[in-house]
C-alpha cells in the first residue's frame, strides 16, 4: 500500500493555456498527478479553477491549447449535484448515469449511512435540503472504485462535521493509491501533504 506519491502519473498535463473572453486565465501549466497526490487548485473567483477541472475531466474539448493524457478512469463531481429530485437517493445511486458499476442495495445503504443519510434512502429527493442533495452526490465517493477524483468545490453547502468526514475520506483515498484534484477556497485540515496549484500565481507551487 503506497503511502506517498509514487509510480506512473494518472494524469499528465503539458503546457496548458486557456483564454476566456479575451483574458488569459493560465498559460504553460504543466503538472503530473501521481497516485497518492492530493492536489488543491487555488485562486480567486474567475481564475479558471472550474474551467481547468472541466478540461481535465474531458468535458471541455475546445478553446484551450496544450496536451493532456488521462491514464485511468476518473470521477468528476461538478457544481451541479446530478441528483434527480423525483428519484429517491437509493434510485439516484443505483441508476446513476455515470455508469460506473452496479451496486447492491447493501452497498448503497452503507454509502448513504456514511454521508449521514441513514433513514433517507427511500425519501423522494425533492424533500431533501440542498446540503442533503450534495451529500447524496458525495455518497458516490464511498462507492467509487475510480482512481482519480476531480472535485469542484466539494465542501459547498456541507456542514462542519461533513467537511471533516470528507477530508478523512480524501486522505484514505490517496493513501490507497488514488489521487484527488480538487478546488476549494478553504484550506484542507488534513495530516497529509497537500500540493497546492495556485492559478493566480500561474505556476504550481
Amino acid at each position, binding site marked *: 500500500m503506497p503511502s506517498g506519491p509514487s509510480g506512473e502519473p494518472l494524469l499528465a498535463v503539458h503546457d496548458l493555456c486557456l483564454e476566456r473572453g479575451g483574458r488569459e486565465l493560465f498559460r504553460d501549466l504543466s503538472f503530473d498527478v501521481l497516485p497518492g497526490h492530493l492536489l488543491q487548485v487555488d485562486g480567486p473567483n474567475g481564475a479558471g479553477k472550474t474551467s481547468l477541472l472541466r478540461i481535465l*475531466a*474531458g*468535458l*471541455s*474539448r*475546445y*478553446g484551450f491549447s496544450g496536451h493532456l493524457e488521462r491514464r485511468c*478512469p*476518473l470521477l*468528476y463531481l*461538478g*457544481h*451541479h*449535484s*446530478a*441528483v*434527480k*429530485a*423525483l*428519484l429517491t437517493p437509493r*434510485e439516484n445511486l*443505483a*441508476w*446513476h*448515469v*455515470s*455508469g*460506473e*458499476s*452496479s451496486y447492491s442495495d447493501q452497498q448503497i445503504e452503507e454509502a448513504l449511512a456514511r454521508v449521514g443519510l441513514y433513514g433517507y434512502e427511500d425519501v423522494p429527493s425533492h424533500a431533501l435540503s440542498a446540503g442533503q442533495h450534495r451529500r447524496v452526490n458525495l455518497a458516490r465517493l464511498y462507492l467509487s*472504485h475510480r482512481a482519480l477524483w476531480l472535485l469542484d468545490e466539494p465542501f459547498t453547502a456541507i456542514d462542519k462535521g461533513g467537511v471533516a468526514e470528507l477530508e478523512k475520506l480524501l486522505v484514505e483515498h490517496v493513501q490507497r493509491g488514488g489521487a484527488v484534484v480538487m478546488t476549494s477556497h478553504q484550506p484542507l485540515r488534513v495530516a497529509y501533504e497537500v500540493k497546492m496549484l495556485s492559478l493566480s500565481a500561474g505556476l504550481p507551487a
Partner: protein
Amino acid sequence: MESPATAAFCLALLRRQLTLAARRPIEIGNPLLFFAMVVALFPLGLGPAPDKLASFAPGILWIIALLSNLLTSETVFRSDFEDGSLEQLLLAPQPLFMSVLAYIGAQWLTTGLLLALVSPIFALMINLPGPAIGALVASLLLGTAVLSLVGGIGAALTVGLKRGGMLISLLILPFYMPVLIFGSAAVQNAVLGMPALPYLAILGSMLCLAIALAPLAIAAGLRISIDA
C-alpha cells in the same frame, strides 16, 4: 470493479427515464390532451360535414401527431442538463451512442407509442374510414419513432439555450416533412382501398436509417452543448 456492460447500463437508464416519466404523469398526458383538443378544433373550423372531414382525416391526424411530438421532443435532455446529470453521462465509459438510444427509447415509449395506441379514438372523432385505422396505427408507430430520433438531434443541439423551443422547431421541422409525406400517404392509400404496405416499408427504412445515424448526431450535439 468492472463497469457494467453497455446493455445493462442502457436498461438501467431506460428504467430511470421511465420511472421519472411515470412520476410526472401530467407530462405524459399533455401531448395526448393536445392531440384531443386539436382534433376537436377541426370540425369547428372545417364544418361538421362527415364526408368532408373524412377526406382530410389522414393529413389532419398526422400533422397533429407531428406537432404533439414536437412539443415533447425539446424536454428529453433538458432536466438532465440543468441538474448536471448530462455531464456525468458524457463521462460514462459506455458508448454515448447506446445511452442516447435509451433516452430516446424512453421518450418514444411515453409519447409516440401512447399516441399511436390511442389514435383510433381520435380517428373516429373525425370520421376516418374504419379500414384505414390499422394503417394509421402502424404508420404512427413507425413514424413517431423516426420523429423522436430526429427530434432528439434538435433537443441535443438546443439543450444549452434558455429558450430553444422556437429554434428546435425551425431546425427539425424540415426533417419531419418526409415522415409526414409517407405517413399520411400510407393512411390515404388505405382510405382509397389501395395497399399501404409500400409506404409503411419506406417509413420502416427511414426508421432503420434514423436508428443508425441519429444517435451519432445526438451524441455529437450533446458534447457540443456541454462544452459551450
